[in-house]
C-alpha cells in the first residue's frame, strides 16, 4: 500500500534542511555557545538563496548565497555575544525574530518567481536502476554534502586536534584560555560555520524542496534542529539518526493518511515529534553519560580576565 522507495526518497528530502542546520548548531554548541537564532538564520538563507537563484539563474550561487546570508546573520550574533558579551539566549531569540522580519522584507516581490531547476548529481541512467536508483542517485548534490558533513564533523570532533580544541573551549573556556587558545576567535568561527549550515538548510528548503519563496516558510524547522542537537546529546551520528527519524516519520504519517490507514490523525500528525524525542531520549537514557557529553560551558559568557 505504501511504496517504501518513494517513502525513503521523501525521508531524505524532508530531513535535509533540519540535518544541515542541526549539524552546524552542534559544532556551535560544542564550543560552548548556544545560538537560538537557527530559525532566523535558516529563513535568511532561504530568502537570499531564492533571490540569488532568481536573479542569476545559478543554483550553485544560490546555495552559496544562502550560506553567506546565514553567516552574515550569525556574525551579528557573534559580535553581540562574543565581543559585547550580551546574553546568548536573548540575543539568539532576537536573531530569530530579526531574521524572520528581514527575510520578509527582502523577499517582497519574489514569491512565485520561476527558478532554474536543481540538477541531480547522477545521470538519469543511474536513477533508472530499480530501488537503488531513486533512493541513492536521484538527489541534488546538497543532499550528499549534508551526509558527508556529518561524517566530517564527527571526524573533526573525535579524531583531530582541532576537534579537541573545540571541545576544550566548550568544556571550560577559562582553562582553554589559560592554555593559550583564542576562545573568542574559535567560538566566532564556529558561530559562522553554524550560520553557513543553517543558511544552506534554508536555501535547500526554498530553492530545492519547495521551489518558492513564501514568508515564514521555515515554519519551525530551526527549532526542531535545536531540539535535535540536545536530544542527540551532541553526537553527530545521533543528529543524523534523529533527522532521518523525524523526516521518515513525517513522510510516513502523510502516506498512512493517504492510504486511509485507521490510525487517529492527531496521533499521526504529532508522531514525528514524539517518536524522534522518545528514541533519542532512550538512546541517551544513561543520564550520567549524557550529562558528560553536554558542553560544560554551554551558554556561559566568557570574559578574559586575570
Amino acid at each position, binding site marked *: 500500500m*505504501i*511504496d517504501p522507495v*518513494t*517513502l525513503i526518497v*521523501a525521508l531524505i528530502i*524532508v530531513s535535509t*534542511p533540519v540535518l544541515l542546520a542541526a549539524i552546524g548548531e552542534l559544532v556551535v554548541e560544542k564550543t560552548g555557545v548556544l545560538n537560538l537564532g537557527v530559525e532566523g538564520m535558516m529563513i535568511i538563507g532561504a530568502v537570499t538563496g531564492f533571490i540569488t537563484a532568481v536573479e542569476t539563474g545559478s543554483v550553485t550561487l544560490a546555495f552559496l548565497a544562502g550560506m553567506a546570508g546565514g553567516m552574515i546573520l550569525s556574525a551579528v550574533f557573534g559580535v553581540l555575544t562574543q565581543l559585547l558579551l550580551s546574553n546568548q539566549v536573548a540575543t539568539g531569540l532576537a536573531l530569530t525574530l530579526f531574521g524572520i522580519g528581514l527575510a*520578509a522584507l527582502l*523577499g*517582497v516581490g519574489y*514569491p*512565485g518567481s520561476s527558478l532554474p531547476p536543481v540538477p541531480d548529481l547522477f545521470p538519469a541512467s543511474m536513477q533508472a536502476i530499480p530501488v537503488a536508483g531513486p533512493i541513492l542517485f536521484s538527489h541534488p548534490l546538497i543532499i550528499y554534502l549534508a551526509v558527508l558533513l556529518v561524517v566530517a564533523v564527527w571526524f573533526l570532533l573525535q579524531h583531530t586536534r582541532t576537534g579537541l580544541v573545540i571541545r576544550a573551549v566548550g568544556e571550560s573556556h577559562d582553562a582553554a584560555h589559560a592554555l593559550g587558545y583564542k576562545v573568542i576567535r574559535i567560538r566566532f568561527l564556529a558561530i559562522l560555520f553554524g550560520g553557513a549550515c543553517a543558511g544552506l538548510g534554508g536555501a535547500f*528548503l526554498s530553492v530545492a*524542496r*519547495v*521551489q*518558492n519563496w*513564501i*514568508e*515564514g*516558510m*521555515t*515554519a519551525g*524547522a530551526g527549532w526542531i534542529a535545536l531540539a535535535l542537537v540536545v536530544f542527540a546529546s551532541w553526537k553527530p551520528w545521533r543528529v543524523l539518526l534523529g533527522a532521518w527519524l523525524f523526516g521518515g516519520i*513525517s*513522510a510516513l504519517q*502523510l*502516506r498512512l*493518511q*493517504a*492510504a*486511509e490507514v*485507521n490510525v*487517529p*490523525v*492527531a496521533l499521526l*500528525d504529532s508522531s514525528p515529534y514524539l517518536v524522534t524525542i522518545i528514541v533519542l531520549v532512550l538512546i541517551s537514557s544513561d543520564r550520567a553519560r549524557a550529562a558528560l557529553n553536554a558542553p560544560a560551558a554551554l551558554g556561559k559568557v566568557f570574559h578574559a580576565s586575570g
Partner: protein
Amino acid sequence: MKTPIKTLAAALTALSLAAGGAMAQDDPFKVGFVYVGPIGDYGWTWTHDQGRLAVEEHFGDAVETVYAESVPEGADAERVITQMILDGADMIFTTSFGYGEATNAAAGRFPDVYFEHATGYLREHPNVSTYSARFYQGRAVIGHIAGHMTESNIVGYIASYPIPEVIRGINSAYLHARAVNPDVEFRVIWAYTWFDPAAEADAAQALIDAGADVIMQHTDSTAPQTVAQEAGAISFGQASDMIQFAPLPRVASIIDNWGPYYIRRIGEAMEGTWEQSDTWEGMPEGMVLIGEMSEAIPEEVRASATALMESMQSGEYHPFTGPINRQDGTAWLAEGEIADDGTLAGMAFYVEGLTGEIPN
C-alpha cells in the same frame, strides 16, 4: 550638555502636541485586520489584504487601516486585538476560524468597537458579526473539472483542520466529481496547519505517490502547486487565483473576494447603521469567484463547468441537492431536497462514497 537635552525635550513636547492636535482635527475611522498567515502567502491572507487595500482605495483618507500578520490562533490573538484597540482602532476584522474566542472576549471588553470575525459562528456580544463565503460552491466547480480530468481516478486533497468549513468543501468537491465520474476516489491528508509550505509540499508529494493525479488544497500556500507541476498532476488555485501556475498545473481556481463586503460593513459602521449579522455569501453576490479556466481543460469540460458555475450564480442550483446519503449509508437529503444552512454550517460528516474517516 544641558541645553541640547532641554531643546530636545521641548521639541518632542511640541511634536506630540502637534500630532495630538492633528488627530483631533480629522480623526480617520481606524480599522484593524488580524491575519493568520503572512500577506505573502499569495493565498488566503493575501486575499484578505486585497480586501483591506480595496477599503483604503475606496475611502481614501477617511479610513486608516492597520494589520498584524501571522498571528497565532488562541490567546495571542486577543493580545494583538487589544493592542490595536488601545492604539485607536474603531473596528476589527479577524480573518481566521480560530480567532472566535479571542474576538468575542475582546468584544466583551470593548463594547464600542465593531468586530467582524471571518468563517466563525460565535456572536456572544451585540458588537460581533460573523461572515463567510460559500466556498463550497467553488468546490463544486473544481470537483466537476477534477472528475472529468483525472485519469488515475484518484483525487488528492490537502485538508487543514477537521472543521465544518473544510469538510463541506471535501463533500462538495467529491459529489460533483462523482457526478461526472462514478469511479473517482478521494484521498484526504489532514495537515493540521493553514500555512506551512514545506508540510503542504510534502503532503502533495505523498498524495501523488499514492496515485493521485489531481491535487486540491484547503491550505493557504502555493507550495502544493509547485509539487503538482513537477509531477505532472493538475491543481487548483485556492483562495487567490495563483495564476502564476497557469495553464498547468493550475487549471482553475476558487477566489475569495472580500473587498465589497469590507467596504460595505466599514461604511455602515461609520454611518452608525452597522448591525450584528451572520453573513454567508457566495457566487450570486460575487464573494466567491472562479478564476480563469485554462486551456488545459478540454473545451467541453470548460463549457459544462461554466454552466455549473452560472447555475449557482443565478441561484437556481444548490451544490447540496438530494438525493444525498451520509457516509454510513443513512439518508440525509431526499430527492430534490436542499440542505439548510444550519446543517451546512455545522457539517461534521462525509457523504456516501468517501472512504476516509474524519479525525475528531
